[in-house]
């Protein structure tokens, strides 16, 4: 393509295609080189031509701001890269603020729900705490992993384990990008349901991250309390050994 002989031959070979505009052809070829998936769309005459439409860009923005970073779409032009960096610098702390607050809200909701259900149970604070953790973990596993995985299995036509793998790598913000939602042909043929599905998926990512931050905080808090306890007891034991 850099030598230009391929499009030249295509256009001028015995004037086979006189109606094709040269600049249009070059644009198409450049896009095809950048985004090889477009070739399928052009050949099969589909309407979803540009990946950088609103839902695709929204997905890209979500992947930047949550630091997941799928990588299937990344800025190509210089201006795009600069804007991406600036956007990330402001967006990441802002997102962390929001997700942290969301997580707290969810925790309070969960504890409220639990209290309403069992008004007669008198638990000690420790048992209460453990029950809270249990509920959170169960709810987390079901709502954040199983249900979305089922949805992806149906829509994206993956295997269930593949969908679980995708959920895990996305919510842990690793984000390999080997599995990405919404770019391949899905079972949702209607454009509007497809866009709705994509929006739902990105909202799930945000909520799931808020939930996971909560789980992480619980785990680290309990780990820390235990570590401190262990530390204090070992130091006491060391002290008593020293005294002996």
């Amino acid at each position: 393509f850099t030598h230009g002989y391929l499009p030249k031959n295509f256009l001028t070979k015995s004037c086979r295609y006189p109606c094709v505009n040269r600049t249009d052809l070059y644009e198409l070829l450049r896009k095809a080189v950048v985004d090889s998936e477009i070739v399928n769309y052009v050949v099969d005459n589909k309407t979803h031509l540009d990946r950088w439409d609103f839902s695709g860009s929204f997905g890209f923005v979500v992947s930047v701001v949550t630091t997941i970073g799928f990588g299937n779409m990344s800025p190509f032009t210089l201006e795009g890269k600069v804007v991406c960096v600036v956007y990330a610098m402001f967006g990441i702390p802002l997102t962390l603020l929001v997700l942290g607050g969301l997580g707290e809200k969810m925790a309070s909701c969960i504890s409220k729900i639990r209290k309403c259900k069992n008004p007669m149970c008198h638990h000690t604070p420790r048992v209460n705490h453990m029950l809270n953790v249990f509920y959170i973990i169960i709810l987390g596993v079901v709502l954040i992993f199983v249900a979305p995985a089922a949805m992806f299995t149906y829509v994206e036509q993956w295997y269930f384990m593949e969908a679980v793998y995708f959920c895990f790598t996305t919510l842990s913000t690793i984000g390999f990008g080997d599995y990405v939602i919404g770019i391949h042909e899905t079972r949702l043929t209607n454009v509007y349901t497809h866009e709705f599905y994509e929006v739902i998926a990105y909202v799930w990512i945000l909520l799931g991250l808020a939930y996971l931050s909560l789980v992480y905080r619980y785990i680290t808090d309990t780990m820390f309390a235990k570590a401190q306890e262990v530390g204090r007891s070992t130091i006491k034991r060391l002290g008593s050994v020293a005294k002996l």
Partner: protein
Amino acid sequence: KDHTPVKDSLLTPGPKFTKSHDQKQKLKIVNDSVRTKQEKSKVVTKSLQLPGQRFHTAAVKVQAVVKFTRLERLKRRAKWATKKLIVFILSHVGLTVLVGLYAVAGGFIFQNLETNTTFVNNTHNNNETEEVLENLRWQFVERLFNMTYELNVIHPDSWKMHATSVLEAYEKQIRQILRNVTDKEDGQLSESNDWTYPRALLYALTIITTIGYGNTVPLTWEAKLVSMVYALFGIPLTLLCLANIGSLLASVYRLTWKHLTHIWLVIRRSPSRHDPKIETSQVRVPILVSLTTMVVYILGGAAIFSKWENWSFLDGSYFCFITLSTIGFGDFVPGKNRDTFESNTKRVVCALYLLFGLATLSMVFQLLQDSVSVVIGRYASVLGLSESKIRKDMEETTNDGSRTASTATKVNDRFLATVLEAPASAAAEKNHQIKIGHTIQESRVRDAPMV
């Protein structure tokens, strides 16, 4: 002072007895009274001794006590030192070593998991190419012979001309083959080929730091499952380690900043010299300085990688930023898809840059934490939104007895409390580093330096 108070009360001021009789009486009284065995023995030893003897034993006892405390002090100091050392190892060095071992082990695990599947593909490609080359060689040897045979009479110039054209055709074919082979290596197949150790190490690191480039991905089911489990345990461990290192580096940075400012003021002979004996933990590094450190690190990495990989400098800094913010698109990754020594060293250097960069980032976060909360507090107080002022207002309104105003201020208070506490909690959510660092600092203050 043989007489204890109890004895005095028991002994009535009666007639004087003889010594032995006196002693016997005392013993009897001691035995009769309700007292512990210790006291009885004390009383007995005390009463059985002459005054001179008592002084001597007392002196011996005092000497023994002094010796005992000195030895005890030494022992205690040694034990305290060893305790501190153990705890230090477990908290800083030990954790780092643990994470390093985890990454190294992960590299081995993934290398073993993935090379089995790709080995077959590699040999297949090589055999194919070998065959093609051999056929091509024979083909052109035949052509050369035919050309020479047809010439019949061999003139050097004409033969050379014909031979050149034949060899040019051969060259063209070779180029075509090489292009196909290299295309295959650059394509999807080669991404999973050659899981050398540096590549596996970089892959393991991208998992536990949640960067996740995506240029190398697990293909088999076992590898995917192992990756998930590896991430589940590795990510909290790495976050913990990074928070730890970050707090350590932050305190070192604060110390150097304190001394630098002191030296600067001394040089300028400014009258308002800062007291060098301020607590290191109270030194506040300005926001600009911490941010500049991060920027310098990013630009330094950009310079190195852009030179090695022939990227532009802007592309290199873009790569460094995307990597260190753990976004990790994977559009730029150092080390091409070859198995050369160069690309392997590049990958190892990238891994090291990654680790140090994340530690620096954690340090910068902790340094920023103090400054940012102070700055926001200042602005909040300027705007009249400080917590103390709100509480005062609330008190005033509750004293006045107007309910609506009090509830309004209550709502404001709660909302603004979350906003004011936000910087700390936001940074905590980021990689859960700051919260951990805070707890570390708190725990250190509480003198429980474990972890």
